[in-house]
């Protein structure tokens, strides 16, 4: 219950800070001007390598959000009945739903091919979430910790890669802001997982390594297919 209160306080604090400066993702979730080039067009002056890098980045991000959604869905299916844990998972899941909604719009905007492994990401995500949920609350939190660690680092790497990518096109600064916002959200989930005893999970080191390695393999696959 304390963790839920902490999460809600942190989110409320962030919302207060951001109420003066709206979240970058609001351009997609609450669009004021859908025909604004920042949300409706993709740069056409990218080199072939840059276009491939952008495609791969958004494909991986979208697949990652699909998997994250289904991980929380699986965890909620098992642990949802526990009041405190259920509320915690639901709150993080709601944020991932928003992430996925924005990623879907970015995929369409930048004309990116989604991963062929879309359905596999759903099945694997749900399976991982349900399995760690069955192992217990701490194991579910360890799963969240491991996944959000990889995703947070991955978003960071992408920001570095996008540093010099078409800075004059209006969509790119917005894309970077969105990725920055999502990275911060994922790191917030990571913190929440740690606060909620993720490191007390049985065989925490092994669980984290296996899940982390699985995420890295998924990233490499989604980069290509």
């Amino acid at each position, binding site marked *: 219950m304390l963790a839920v209160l902490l999460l809600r306080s942190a989110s409320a604090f962030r919302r207060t800070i951001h109420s003066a400066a709206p979240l970058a993702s609001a351009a997609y979730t609450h669009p004021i001007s859908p025909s604004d080039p920042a949300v409706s067009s993709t740069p056409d002056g990218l080199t072939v390598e840059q276009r491939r890098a952008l495609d791969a980045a958004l494909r991986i991000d*979208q697949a990652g959000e*699909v998997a994250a959604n289904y991980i929380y869905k699986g965890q909620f299916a098992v642990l949802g009945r526990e009041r405190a844990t259920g509320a915690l998972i639901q709150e993080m899941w709601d944020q991932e739903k928003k992430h996925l909604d924005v990623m*879907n719009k970015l995929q*369409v905007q930048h*004309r990116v091919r*989604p991963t*062929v492994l*879309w*359905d596999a990401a759903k099945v694997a995500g749900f399976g991982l979430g349900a399995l760690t949920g069955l192992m217990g609350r701490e194991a579910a939190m360890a799963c969240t910790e491991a996944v959000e660690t990889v995703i947070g680092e991955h978003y960071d790497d992408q920001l570095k890669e996008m540093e010099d990518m078409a800075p004059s096109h209006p969509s790119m600064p917005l894309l970077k802001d969105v990725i920055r916002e999502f990275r911060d959200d994922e790191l917030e989930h990571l913190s929440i997982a740690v606060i909620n005893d993720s490191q007390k999970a049985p065989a925490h080191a092994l669980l984290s390594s296996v899940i982390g390695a699985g995420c890295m393999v998924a990233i490499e696959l989604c980069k290509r297919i």
Partner: protein
Amino acid sequence: MMEGSSPTSQHQMHLSRRKRLEAIQLTIQLSFPLIKEYGFSRETLARSVLTLPEPPSAPLSDTAVNALFGEGDSARRTLINAWLDEGRAQMRLTPAESISEVLAGRLRYNEPVLSLLPEAFALLASPRSGLPPLDARPALRHATTIADDACHIVGDASVGHSWYTRRASIATVYVAAELHQMSSPETALQFLGSLLRSTTTLESAVAETSLFAEYVAKSWKGIIKSSGMV
């Protein structure tokens, strides 16, 4: 940096490469209106310079065409691919609200050079050397890029496997309509319309089947839960 080359010679090489690319682009653009008369041929490329505001006294020589586009059929392949790219560019510029309008527009783009297309596509499908005897990749690229562009033009927002199924069905419809157009141009647009209607019916049937399967799965979930097995 190449061994033994100075920054000046590097710069000169870059400039000459850029000039060559500009010359290729210009020659191709000037060639498009001539395709109907001279075909997807080296002659078309050679004669393109005669349409310049201040034309030279003679078309480009064979040596010049080789220098810009390569020897043999390379020049023809480049011209055909550029013409196909121009078709897609015109698709994007022509306002359309439905897939039907977009694809109809693309089929109309074929009309002036329809009789030349079978040979053009056959050339693209023939390998540059050795086996296999047929290269299906250019045809696949042609169909899939048109399908992807068409989806983008009408604002299709499919994600996941729907992205693939939508484009696969549109690509299939377009290829069938284009093949029909080559043998029966007068009925091509009606054929396109009927194919698209069938595809829509098929997509609805698949969606309804998926929905039915979902209901069945939920029912079983309920039955298992109420039996106390879980």
